[in-house]
């Protein structure tokens, strides 16, 4: 029997001691009408070889494409040591470190992680993770409202350049508490248009939220954002990419109150979209409104350094309906991987990754915009992503590229109709000059009409 160690004589011996005739007897308190005569209809069990055959066949039916897509998930080099060490059973199969004496390894690691995230973002403190960038953004908004009760506002003004999925998740998670997200649109140059806020006659804003770099790869005018937050007496929530922070000025230096982000670029595989890592950091004065677990350094009863989860009075298992969040399980193993990743790269290594990403994307954008019918949405600095406008619908172009094993980017036409036919492209440090050239010639061929997607061909037939 897979995973069950009992021998039949042992089962009989245990039942005899329990004065039961059969295992069924142990379920005697459950009404008979609720006990199914036969187990649910799922496929018959498989041995390890059998499930291995199926899984390998299906993994083989996925076709990883040459990746020029970002949009919140990025292909970076992951040092071999990251998952070799993170997959050790002592990290992989241990529990939440509520029993500090039995989890000093994970607790010290979490303390080191919090230090690294605080350093990267320029904030005072970081928590021990949320689920992903989108939920970290939503929790940052909720937290900002709690931290800014004096504003009396239940509204948050959010830049339209914040990841659309982050805004959607925040919408889902904030709705129940009657909080409202108000959008700050883009002007023609891709900058924030504060006009709607100037004309707004509502009760102000508890927080203003922006991403740097933003979803379209660009940089907000951070001084304008900080000034706007001050003018509204609102907290400034900033979404970040941790790899970009290898070279960018940390938001703590330009006035962010709460920083959130997607930690996937720190050693976590793209894995079809998850599990990822929600980053959250803040100024010390907001610490007690921060959701999620936090590890702290203290001393043990012998006076030696020790680590323990702390400030648990914020959390659901203590505070129940008055907790800062309902989060319990977080992304512990992803924290382990990210910590290993940051330790292996160091500050200089992370900067070089960021610089290489930027350099490759400059090359990519130059190569693609040399093609007729492809231009930049606007001419402004970018990190490792840029919005391009095509002279035709994006979806068939991406399908034709996929036929040539190229993932040409993310089609953002539906999310940003003001940009027309818009494509978000990205090149990380993993892309080589010849791969970028291969993408450019494939796109050039498609734009000249030489290649028709097989799906289009099927459709036409």
């Amino acid at each position, binding site marked *: 029997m897979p995973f069950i160690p009992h021998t039949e004589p042992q089962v009989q011996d245990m039942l005899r001691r329990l004065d039961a005739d059969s295992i069924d007897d142990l379920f005697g308190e459950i009404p008979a009408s609720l006990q199914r005569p036969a187990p649910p209809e*799922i496929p018959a069990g498989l041995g390890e070889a059998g499930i291995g055959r199926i899984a390998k066949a299906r993994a083989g039916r996925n076709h990883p494409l040459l990746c020029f897509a970002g949009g919140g998930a990025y292909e970076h080099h992951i040092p071999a040591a990251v998952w070799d060490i993170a997959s050790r059973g002592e990290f992989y199969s241990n529990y939440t*470190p509520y029993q500090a004496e*039995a989890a000093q390894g994970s607790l010290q690691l979490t303390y080191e992680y919090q230090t690294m995230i605080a350093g990267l973002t320029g904030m005072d403190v970081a928590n021990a993770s949320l689920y992903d960038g989108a939920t970290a953004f939503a929790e940052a908004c909720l937290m900002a409202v709690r931290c800014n009760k004096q504003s009396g506002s239940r509204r948050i003004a959010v830049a339209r350049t914040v990841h659309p999925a982050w805004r959607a998740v925040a919408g889902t998670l904030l709705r129940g508490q009657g909080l409202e997200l108000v959008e700050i649109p883009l002007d023609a140059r891709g900058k924030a248009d504060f006009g709607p806020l100037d004309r707004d006659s509502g009760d102000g804003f508890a927080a203003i939220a922006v991403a740097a770099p933003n979803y379209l790869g660009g940089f907000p005018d951070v001084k304008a954002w900080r000034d706007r937050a001050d003018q509204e007496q609102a907290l400034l929530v900033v979404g970040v990419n941790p790899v970009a922070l290898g070279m960018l000025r940390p938001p703590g230096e330009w006035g962010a109150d709460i920083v959130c982000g997607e930690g996937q670029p720190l050693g976590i595989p793209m894995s079809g979209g998850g599990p990822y890592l929600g980053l959250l950091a803040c100024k010390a004065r907001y610490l*007690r409104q921060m959701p999620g677990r936090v590890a702290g350094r203290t001393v043990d009863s012998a006076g030696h350094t020790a680590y323990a989860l702390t400030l648990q009075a914020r959390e659901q298992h203590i505070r129940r309906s008055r907790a800062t969040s309902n989060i319990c399980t*977080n992304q512990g193993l992803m924290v382990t991987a990210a910590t290993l990743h940051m330790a292996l790269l160091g500050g200089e290594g992370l900067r070089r990754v960021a610089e290489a990403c930027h350099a490759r994307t400059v090359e990519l954008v130059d190569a693609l915009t040399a093609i007729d019918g492809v231009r930049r949405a606007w001419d402004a600095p970018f990190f490792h992503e840029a919005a391009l406008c095509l002279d035709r619908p994006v979806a068939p172009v991406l399908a034709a590229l996929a036929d040539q094993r190229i993932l040409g980017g993310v089609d953002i036409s539906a999310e940003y109709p003001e940009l027309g036919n818009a494509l978000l492209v990205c090149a990380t440090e993993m892309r080589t000059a010849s791969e970028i050239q291969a993408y450019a010639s494939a796109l050039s061929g498609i734009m000249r009409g030489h290649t028709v997607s097989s799906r289009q061909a099927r459709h036409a037939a």
Partner: protein
Amino acid sequence: MPPRLIFEKASPGRRAHAQAPAPEAAPPVDLPAELIREQDARLPEVSELDVVRHYTRLSQLNFSIDTNSYPLGSCTMKYNPRACHRLASLPGFLDMHPAAPDSAAQGLLECLYELQEMLAQVTGMEAVSLAPMAGAQGEFAGVAMFNAYHRANEDYERDEIIVPDAAHGTNPATAAMCGLKVREIATGRDGDIELEALDAALGPRTAGIMLTNPSTLGVFERRILEISSRVHAAGGLLYYDGANLNALLGRVLPGDMGFDAMHLNLHKTFSTPHGGGGPGAGAVGVAASLKPFLPVPIVEKIDGAYRWKTEAPRSIGRLAANGGNIGVLLRAWAYLRMLGREGLRRVSDHAVLNANYLAFRLAEAGFDLAYPSRRAGHEFVISLKRLRDETGVSAADFAKAMLDEGFHAPTVYFPLLVPECLLIEPTETESPEALDTLIDAMARIRDQALSDPQAVISAPHRMPIRRPDEVLAARKPDLAYGPALES
């Protein structure tokens, strides 16, 4: 003494040189100077071997399922099969960008679709969404769907949720996130809900009730059918907290008990790893009436091809940036396919056999069961109140002494209504010999409490640290290496 911090092992200029692009691949950037940081981020400057040794050493300070038994109630710390980890880590799964077209992800989508279907079968629910990334998010999805359902019926007065006093803390915390008021109801002396208390709480403001069954007391709520008919008669809905599904797997289906929505903790029942706190996965299942409100995305099968369905007009919306914790879902898929139809019931059979055997033997050894007249589900509660009154040894002290014996402590002081309690869940993957070792260890600690209580009160003695000063940790938070904080 703990190892020094990785930062304290650093030397300026030292790096793991193989891990980052060479300087010539990373030319200085041509961006406005005000965007660029003045100094590199303060990350450790260490070699690859430094990193490997440091974190290997840290790992050795942890208990884990691979090294120790975890009789940790409500957490279902069963063995995490290696095959599930290996198969979910195949490059064809790991290297997939979330924006990849469905046509390039058919193998992954087929696994996820199959998991949705199997989970619907296993729970007796009509449909399943895999989007929630943990149990608490599954709860959020469930209660948000209750709200959406009532609103769709133009029933705007339902702003209360009923939660038993023994419930997990996530239940009331979730209700609050969904904007509902919590009405707590008492548990009776026999461990079942008091129907009078339920009737008193039910009314036109009832959005629903959140229940765990078997409850966190480890006993099956025997009048569940009566409860579900009363809640439904009052216009409310029933939410099943799937944390304890291991007790019923393959035998009793939440859908048959009358539940309208539920989550499954795939990191409990379906054996995906806890990873030191996560990631988990909290797939949510619903009855037909709630299907339109399920969170997106959901995997669909149309003409033999699989695709992500990302829009549904009445959905409560998105819960994750992408499709949820997919790597975790793949592990649960592999586990379920290995268990198969005939293996489902073996899980609950042996989980319940182990719990009842352990409860019986501990009672024989002089421990007080909180509900001695009841059959244990997959877990049970003992109270150390008598021991504490006699010796001064508390449940927390006892738990620390168990660490010295090589066992992770049971869940302590939960549920809140049993004084000095230990909530014990052995799971089906522990052998009878392992249970006997646990019983011997607990009997030894009890003997020591009676003969030399101070030795237990000062435990642990053989762990990497003694008890941490949690008051100091909370009063003067030291949450990052470097300058002290003022908060």
